[in-house]
């Protein structure tokens, strides 16, 4: 009877009003015997609240976490600081336990927050409009790919090999069914090969999916790339790290047609990979092709400003098989987290986070590159993440760091063997504003022990 507030007396009265003698009659009237389950569910015995928490704490204790370990892992999820006020807002029951604001008159809180989120994403990315959120960065990129195909009518797409391998895999998965051909543009060093891009970017190709900073941490030459893509009237899709936009140019200012991002860095805990936040922003002219919910401002019959869900003619509950996407439930609460986060750090704060991450990452890179047997995988500019060639396999590096209570060492060589160049391993490291100099020095010292 956990969480069920019907007493036996109430149940009896209710059954009487319904006109049956047991709930079994209700089920019997509906479910034919041939599909009835005639045994109890084979589940562990119910626990009380106290036991549930004790059990889960035991389970969680079997993990290493970033409270105990210094985290230099990145690869699309970053250990940025989450201000305390973010969770204080998220815990408000009116946000936490509401659903999609179908009834705007009692949902102005969620609706205004979405409108503010959309506005913030436009400011960050330099784009005209944003939806109310996608599942994560990877599926946002896949939805953007679908938009490109729909918009251009071209069924080939270029994907930079420097895009996060998981993201590429998600794009492939989404595009497989609709028969889109994905063509990989290879690396030249640690960034996209512009010559190959130029050759591959034909007028049969809908556009390019790019990520910058890319998976290895390096900044792509976006202005040159933009020119190549647009020369063939392709669409230029850019996946970014939103935190980087405190320092780096907004994709809207260098010609991106669609910007996607993983929003986790904006006030969202690592939480073993989710729930995160897919950001998707685009140009006004692609508005009707955009997937996902959108809130808009309007007025009520008392003359007050208010907010509603709008442009719903794109969506599945109206358009069904002709919808721009099947997305329904999205990541509203995480979008709220990002909204609260950006309101808290503000204009200066985001720049500070970006700058601190950059400073510390560059310090770490310099120190590691100075270690005998270690060198940077490339000389391209980077933001908070970079890749180093190691004198040992990446897994050995990672294992060694664990012994020093450090999480770090994504195996870049596994995904990009072309990078190794004779080295035993290639390792990607991320450094956020949370990492202290002492922790970085500890990392460097530990790496120095790797042979």
């Amino acid at each position, binding site marked *: 009877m956990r969480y069920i507030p019907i007493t036996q007396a109430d149940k009896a009265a209710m059954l009487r009003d319904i006109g049956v003698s047991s709930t079994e009659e209700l089920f019997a009237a509906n479910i034919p015997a041939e599909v009835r*389950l005639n045994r109890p569910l084979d589940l562990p015995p119910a626990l009380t609240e106290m036991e549930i928490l004790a059990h889960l*704490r035991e389970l969680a204790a079997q993990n290493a976490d970033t409270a105990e370990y210094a985290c230099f892992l*990145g690869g699309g999820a970053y250990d940025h600081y989450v201000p305390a006020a973010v969770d204080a807002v998220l815990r408000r*029951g009116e946000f936490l336990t509401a*659903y999609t604001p179908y009834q705007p008159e009692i949902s102005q809180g969620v609706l205004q927050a979405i409108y503010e989120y959309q506005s913030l994403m436009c400011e960050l990315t330099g784009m005209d409009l944003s939806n109310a959120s996608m*599942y994560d960065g990877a599926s946002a990129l896949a939805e953007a790919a679908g938009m490109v195909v729909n918009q251009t009518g071209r069924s080939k797409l270029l994907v930079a090999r420097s895009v996060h391998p998981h993201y590429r895999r998600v794009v492939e998965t989404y595009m497989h069914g609709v028969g889109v051909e994905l063509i990989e543009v290879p690396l030249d060093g640690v960034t996209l090969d512009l010559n190959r891009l130029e050759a591959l970017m034909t007028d049969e190709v809908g556009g390019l999916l790019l990520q910058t900073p890319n998976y290895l941490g390096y900044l792509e030459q976006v202005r040159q790339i933009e020119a190549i893509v647009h020369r063939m009237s392709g669409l230029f899709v850019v996946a970014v790290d939103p935190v980087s936009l405190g320092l780096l140019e907004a994709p809207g200012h260098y010609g991106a047609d669609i910007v996607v991002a993983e929003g986790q860095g904006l006030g969202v805990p690592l939480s073993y*990979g989710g729930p995160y936040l897919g950001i998707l922003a685009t140009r006004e002219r692609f508005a009707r092709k955009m997937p996902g919910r959108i809130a808009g401002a309007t007025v009520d019959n*008392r003359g007050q400003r208010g907010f509603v869900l709008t442009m719903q003619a794109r969506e599945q509950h109206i*358009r069904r098989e002709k919808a721009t996407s099947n997305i329904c439930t999205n990541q509203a609460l995480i979008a709220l987290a990002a909204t609260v986060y950006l309101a808290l750090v503000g204009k200066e704060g985001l720049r500070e986070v970006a700058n601190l991450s950059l400073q510390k990452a560059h310090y770490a890179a310099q120190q590691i590159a100075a270690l005998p047997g270690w060198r940077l995988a490339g000389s391209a500019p980077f933001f908070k993440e970079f890749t180093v060639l190691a004198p040992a396999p990446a897994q050995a590096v990672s294992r060694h760091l664990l012994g020093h209570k450090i999480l770090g060492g994504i195996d870049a060589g596994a995904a990009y063997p072309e990078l190794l160049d004779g080295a035993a391993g290639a390792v990607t490291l991320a450094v956020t504003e949370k990492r202290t100099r002492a922790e970085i020095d500890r990392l460097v010292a530990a790496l120095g022990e790797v042979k």
Partner: protein
Amino acid sequence: ALVPLLFEQSTPGKRAVTFPAPDVPAVEISEAIPADLLRQVPPALPELSEVEVVRHFTQLSRLNHGVDVDFYPLGSCTMKYNPKVNEEAARIPGFALTHPMQPAETVQGNLKLLHTLERWLCEVTGMDRMTFQPAAGAQGELTGILLIRAYHEARGEGERNEVIVPDSAHGTNPATAAMAGYRVVPVKSMPDGSIDLESLRQTVGPKTAALMMTNPSTLGLFDPHVKEITEIVHEAGGLCYYDGANLNAIMGYARPGDMGFDVVHINLHKTFSTPHGGGGPGSGPVGVKSHLVPFLPVPVVEQQGDRYVLDWDRPQSIGKLHAFWGNFGVVVRAYAYVLAHGPALKEVSEYAVLNANYVMAHLKKYYDVFVDRYCMHECVLAARTLKQETGVKTLDVAKRLLDEGVHPPTIYFPLIVEEALMIEPTETEDKATLDRFIDAMIRIHDEARSNPEHVKAAPHKTPVGRLDEALAARRPNLRYKREQC
């Protein structure tokens, strides 16, 4: 404005959260980053102090309804109570502070949790394996249909290009089929929402890849011929997809796997009580029968002795749906929820069905019922007669309910019911709350006769009145711009 926008409250120079000065030797940004990649104009984020941010969102929240505030019988959305212990559970540092790229040996707790909940949910649904990657129901559907596609392709039956979807289905079903590259073939429902077997028999064929079905249907009624339906599809070489939107009706009573379904998705945020968050995050795990296991997204959590690993080596996999492993924080909450019930999960469905029938029993004298049969976990009523007689339509009834402090039911869905009101009380409401709702619905029914204009002008007590949705669509204002304020 009830609450000014963050941007309207912004004042240059205000700060909330600040960060320490760098503790490492300084790097010149201009040396690290080429000038053409540096931002010239910083993003115009609002500048506020912490007190203003907290007040802003506190004030916004107070304009919002949630399950924590009062009744929320939004049909099809299963707005049940979200236990507070689950919020604590998801915030345990050992879960919340783990990085998705950690080596498996450092996240054995996470992997064990995923593997265990997979087993439990397979038991509830009658499936063999499950993936937690889909972030919501719709992504679960896409995953499921792509699994079916991969199955057919692996068997050399790639020419199957049709997915059959009943006309009573949620919009996500046809939209999903289209996203997976399928032609959507509608099949008509009988007036009770069940699938017309004859029509189905005529629809299936060598082009049939799958049937997508919600059972109980969106009318809240269990399709008695479900076994026959899945057999018809199977005989035609198609597979059967179970949309788990309405799983809250049948836990412990029946299992999609036993009905003949090959794939099923579950909405953890509905049936397993994770908070809806104003529209997510959800979680839409997908379960499959053994013949579809090779196609599951990578990686799959496997147990090896007493260790757990992520298995990426699955050549037939459809690929990935999520950058990492899905909405793990949501999965933790669902795990805690199953633990809180054990085999008594069955009672969840028992009381969900009891509550829906109780509401229907009391309201069917006042609102239209098209199928006068016991319902499952939700009941679909309609204001068709009311509209004919008074001009008060379903929308007006819903808006008038707002004045009673409860969230209205889903309206105008399913599409096959005119002036529909789809009421899903869930099992976490007590009789007194249901009685209060029933009384309100009857009062509105009466008021529609005595004072229809008052009902049509509703809501009267909400912070904003009826909003001009036409204006919003005609002149889209989708973001703040400085010149607007």
